């Protein structure tokens, strides 16, 4: 059963140059306990999609469509209801812990804040719960560490604090936005293991451009390009038998898969290309690709692709 069901989601915000269509008619669902990876290049709209789910975008943003969480339409929920759900039901682990943590609050206080707010614990109890959380994310000497400020921690430690905050109120759905950005290889694999362990039995949406990360953690991967989903399948199929030329190009640009770049740059989200959005960078483009906009089609069970080559 779908825990989260995103139907025809369109998120756009005004800019001096025109309306930026960051998310364009996206359909996506996450089942209970499922781990979904959302991958794509910088600026393809994946973070905006994540922020749309928790409604953390600025007031001028227009969000259309439906986001059903346990059959509650998030987009119609009142602000109060939403505040209640954030952290407790759906938690977001924001990218870049350096700027996402409050620099003038002790990390223990930052975690305890959410705990006392959602679970009604007294200050002292909330603090000890926060220390427990720090222990759960394997921060050594957690009782002393809780008294430290973000600047006293390393990048990997800060990411652990972010994860502890996300998990603090035992949410059903966790959205992690680039949790391994800026970490070196060893810290990265530790964080991946940690996410893997601590989020078992929970639904997880990982937003990343790192296919390695998505491949290790996720059951299913959705590929996003210029605001649209282009392909959706099990991690195994995406990594080993991708159908869309963009997914193939993306995989081939990995250093471990040959470091072959996709030519060109990602298109504007204000005036996206006519026809297929990838056609001007696609090595397999045919005539019709520049005219007809492809629809998402299910090629085989659970493997969807948006490409005219498979029509």
């Amino acid at each position, binding site marked *: 059963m779908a825990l989260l069901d995103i139907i025809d989601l369109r998120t756009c915000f005004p800019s001096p140059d025109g309306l930026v269509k960051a998310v364009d008619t996206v359909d996506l669902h996450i089942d209970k306990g499922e781990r979904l990876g959302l991958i794509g290049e*910088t600026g393809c709209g994946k973070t905006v999609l994540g922020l749309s789910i928790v409604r953390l975008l600025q007031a001028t943003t227009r969000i259309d469509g439906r986001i059903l969480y346990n059959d509650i339409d998030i987009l119609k929920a009142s602000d109060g209801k939403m505040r209640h759900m954030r952290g407790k039901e759906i938690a977001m682990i924001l990218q870049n812990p350096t700027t996402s943590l409050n620099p003038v609050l002790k990390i223990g206080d930052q975690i305890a804040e959410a705990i006392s707010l959602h679970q009604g614990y007294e200050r002292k109890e909330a603090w000890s719960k926060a220390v427990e959380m720090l222990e759960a994310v394997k921060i050594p000497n957690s009782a002393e560490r809780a008294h430290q400020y973000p600047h006293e921690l390393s990048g990997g430690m800060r990411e652990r604090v972010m994860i502890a905050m996300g998990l603090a109120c035992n949410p059903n759905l966790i959205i992690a936005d680039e949790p391994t950005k800026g970490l*070196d290889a060893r810290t990265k694999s530790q964080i991946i293991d940690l996410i893997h362990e601590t989020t078992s039995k929970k639904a997880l949406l990982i937003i990343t451009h790192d296919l390695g990360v998505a491949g290790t953690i996720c059951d299913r991967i959705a590929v996003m390009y210029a605001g649209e989903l282009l392909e959706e399948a099990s991690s195994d199929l995406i990594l080993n038998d991708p159908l869309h030329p963009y997914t193939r190009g993306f995989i081939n640009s990995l*250093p471990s898969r040959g*470091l*072959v770049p*996709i030519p060109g*740059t990602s298109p504007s989200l204000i005036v996206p290309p006519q026809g297929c959005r990838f056609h001007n960078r696609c090595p397999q483009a045919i005539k019709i690709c520049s005219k007809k906009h492809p629809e998402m089609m299910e090629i085989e069970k659970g493997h969807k692709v948006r490409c005219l080559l498979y029509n």
Partner: protein
Amino acid sequence: MFVIQLIEVSDLKKYYSSGLIKKQYTRAVDGVSFQIKKGETLGLVGESGCGKTTVGRLLLHLIEPTSGKIMFDGVNLIGLKKRELRKLRPRMQMIFQDPESSLNPRMKIGESIAEPFRLGLRGKICTHEIKSQIKDLIEIVGLNPEHVNRYPYQLSGGQNQRVVLARILAINPEFIVADEPTAALDVSVQAQILRLIMNLKKDFGLTMLFISHDLEVVRHMSDRIAVMEMGRIVAVDSVKRDDCNRSV
């Protein structure tokens, strides 16, 4: 056969001290020795905090080492007079991690690339000539002529890194230290920039020290790899070409 070593580093050390009464030393680089042949790329890998960036900065003499010797084309950089060092500087350049902070935010892209010419690093050259040189450089690094009049904030990270490369080529150096040049870029742009660096290296016959924490990336970029740990080089090995091309 006699091989020309462009870079020869021996027993290089850089200690940072803190505290007045109870002095504590951080051994960022603790006795590092290596050579780089002309036209070779040496990869330097290690975890964050192992001292690899410090090595890169020491090589270009951006920071003063505690002790050791750095020979650049037969000249010891340590103890060199400022004026003599300045003469050598155009021959060695650095690509930094974050392209946005390597470019002057108040200079148009064209102005940034023109700076080495204006400073006279390429000899006397008229404005008209500079313009055509910039046009060539912009093309070499894969940017469009319209980018010349933009500011860094108007370009993406990948495009800015291309600008940095164009500016470096304008100086026409022999040796480049690339310090995680794609750390701030995503996978597909990383591939583009790394391919570009590879091609430029070949076309301009550059010698390079390539610093990264990603072993896979280093494997693609280097002829030899040095592994750093806690301020020391713990292993040096050559890269077998067919090994890293197997999946192409």
